[in-house]
């Protein structure tokens, strides 16, 4: 085995079909469709730690099929390949799925922080650190998350985290122009809190961080659930026009009327379809108001919309061969919302592969090859804090939560990191 191929360790909670670990680790093992080829990552995943091996486990059969990947009983052994010093060039942490306790606020206490601590201990003991990727939010606990990001800075290793939503296909394939003046933004998505809320928040954040001045942090957050959600919608707490623009990007809008297959629902019809709507509204330090909306029963995708100053038409990011996009539909001053769907080809009957993990793994690969994250971990630090604040507000009966601790400031990357070719 050539030594110039980075050697990786994966530290995961559990490994069954459709678990995040399966989607991610499998892509390192089998390769994946990428830019028109079956791409094989130029690196070797040589060590695996699985915290819970239960029914449906695939890690053992993967271990048999790929003898080059050894399964170790502890995180330290995985990182040292059974020796006493760090012996890998990168670490992939997937602390999603598995049986872990829930606290009184409804947060699942995935052991991402605990995994991180054990990894850091190996780094410190070995006086060497390597790039690390952390799937989804950093931790359910804000203080820990903050410490995770700070530790990576102090020790000087590349650290990247988050959801697939910022990096997956967009339909249409658009990017928020750097330096845009955004007046308001929202995402209409689906799924549960402490889970898919994170994806919707990352959807919003990867777009709004590109606004003029970059990210300034968040001052407060308020959740709206059930009747309070409908009251807030009626009162115009967020833009109805933007919500409609987001719904117009959906491919899964549940028809509110029988015998129609694709029809825009009225507010009353939405009320009938969506039993438990949730919104988190929050204000950034520079005054931008964003709203994360989960409408189970209405859509099964994630759709972003923003009111952008001087926005006239979506700026299409071209595929390599496209040469004739003359789509400058600059119709005299008309200002449509900027909107797109962050596309998840979801294996819930729609697909067999969760191909949105492919761009996520590809971004990891770039970090492992270059030692540089392709987007800032501060994005995920902030969205981690927003999930925790959302859960806190819900726990406090949708009270507004002041978030002075979320003064997370950062600049976006100039380069887009989402899949588009």
């Amino acid at each position: 085995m050539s030594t110039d191929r980075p050697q990786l360790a994966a530290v995961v909670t559990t490994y069954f079909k459709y678990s995040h670990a399966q989607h991610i680790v499998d892509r390192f093992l089998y390769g994946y469709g990428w830019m028109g080829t079956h791409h094989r990552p130029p690196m070797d995943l040589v060590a695996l730690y699985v915290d819970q091996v239960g029914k449906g486990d695939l890690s053992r059969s993967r271990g048999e099929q790929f003898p080059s990947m050894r399964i170790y009983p502890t995180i330290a052994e995985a990182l040292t390949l059974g020796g006493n010093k760090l012996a890998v060039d990168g670490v992939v942490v997937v602390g999603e799925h598995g049986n872990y306790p829930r606290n009184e606020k409804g947060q699942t206490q995935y052991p991402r922080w605990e995994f991180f601590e054990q990894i850091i201990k190996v780094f410190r003991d070995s006086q060497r650190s390597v790039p690390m990727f952390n799937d989804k939010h950093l931790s359910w606990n804000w203080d820990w998350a903050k410490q995770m990001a700070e530790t990576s800075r102090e020790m000087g290793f590349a650290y990247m985290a988050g959801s697939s939503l910022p990096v997956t296909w967009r339909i249409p394939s658009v990017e928020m122009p750097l330096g845009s003046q955004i007046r308001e933004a929202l995402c209409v998505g689906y799924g549960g809190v402490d889970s898919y809320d994170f994806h919707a928040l990352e959807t919003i954040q990867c777009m709004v961080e590109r606004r003029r001045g970059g990210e300034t942090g968040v001052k407060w957050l308020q959740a709206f659930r059930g009747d309070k959600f409908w009251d807030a919608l009626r009162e115009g707490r967020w833009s109805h026009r933007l919500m409609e623009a987001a719904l117009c990007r959906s491919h899964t809008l549940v028809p509110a009327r029988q015998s129609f297959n694709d029809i825009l629902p009225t507010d009353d019809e939405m009320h009938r379809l969506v039993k438990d709507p949730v919104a988190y509204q929050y204000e950034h330090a520079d005054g931008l108001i964003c709203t994360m909306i989960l409408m189970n029963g209405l859509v099964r995708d994630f759709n972003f919309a923003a009111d952008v100053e001087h926005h006239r038409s979506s700026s299409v990011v071209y595929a390599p061969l496209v040469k004739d996009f003359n789509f400058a539909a600059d119709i005299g001053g008309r200002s449509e919302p900027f909107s797109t769907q962050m596309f998840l080809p979801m294996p819930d009957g729609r697909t067999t592969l969760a191909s949105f993990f492919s761009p996520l793994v590809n971004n990891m690969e770039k970090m492992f090859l270059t030692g540089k994250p392709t987007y800032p971990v501060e994005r995920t630090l902030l969205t981690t804090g927003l999930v925790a604040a959302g859960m806190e507000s819900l726990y406090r009966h949708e009270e507004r939560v002041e978030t002075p601790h979320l003064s997370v400031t950062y600049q976006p990357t100039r380069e887009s990191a989402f899949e588009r070719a």
Partner: protein
Amino acid sequence: MLNRREFLQTGAAATGLLLGAADAPPKRLAIIATVYKYLSHAQHLGDRFLVGYPYGGVWHKPAIKVVSLYVDQKPDGDLSGERAREFGFQVYPTIAEALCCGGKDLAVDAVLIIAEHGDYPRNEKGQILYPRYEFFQQCAEVFARSGRSVPVYNDKHLSYSFTKAQSMVETSRRLRFPMLGGSSLPVTFRLPPLEMPLGCEIEEALMVGEGESDAMDFHAFEGLQCMVERRMHGEAGVRAVQMIEGDAVWKAGEEGRWSRDLLISALSRSDTPLGTGETESRPEDLVTSGQLPKLVANPAAYFIEYRDGLKATLLMLNGALKDFNFAARVKGVPAIQSTQFLLTPEPNVTYSACLVHGIEQMFQTRVAPYPIERTLLVSGILESCLTSKVHDHQRLETPHLKVAYQPPAQSTFCRS
């Protein structure tokens, strides 16, 4: 500063985006359908003219009023009467009456013909004998009689018979009305949003898909055709076709009659590989892992030899995948170019909104956004391939498919 009229003339009209001036009365539309029931093509295309559709990030309401409907069959679940009552139009017993709204002369500004679904016989080639030609001819008779013609959209292929299809196109030329046909595949979203540069030299092209013959193979062919028609000198027509099935398909691959590399590239765009993709969600390459022959009990390959020498292949691999993916080798471009034609899920089938957008554009401007010759050629390719199938899978010369045309300079697929 431009006034409104000047703006419309110089801006929107020039970009082809003029979809009805606000102060003009709505165009009057007749819908001619085989059946109008939930999730039939007539319902999901027709309804978009009644309730609007999502396009470009807004819910677009066409400035078009459906004024009449003809349905050939009223099966269980027929919605024609219900829609007529709700949206204030009439269901007429004949096509002529629908086009004349009960009067003597043509009384509509556009016609939507959707002859897909319904109970119609199949011929020995397996083609469903939808009465598209017959519907079209009845419309044309009204046009001729009234001394006025209006734009016609014909859903899917023009006819199971190339002769009939050709006669339809000739009629539209003779009576001078714009005509659009075909599938949603050419206009749906692409992942990635790949377009073949106009005038590129395509060395070889391949489409891989799945589904029943005489329905899904038509869609796949249109997807393929809308890509290759952009090659140097435009479309020249087809010299010969052949359709083979079973193990002969794998053997042809080994012999290089279709490109394994193009198939790998096309499949790399699929989100639905079956086999270990289905059982374990493994992102494996079905070709290299050797799974394909085990997964596909009856593969089919449709070979097209174009008159300018281009060779293209459609592989229908039922059991291997559930989506439609294209790959081509372009001269001077090292990487194989590939994309998925995204068929978004039921019931919304939002891809048909992309199609309705093009139809609406033609109804408003009397200019078809892409040439009817594409659909004419594909109708003929499909018929000849199915003839090859029942003639012992023989290669067939197709001198009648000398259909030459130029593609639209602008891309017409959904990307905004």
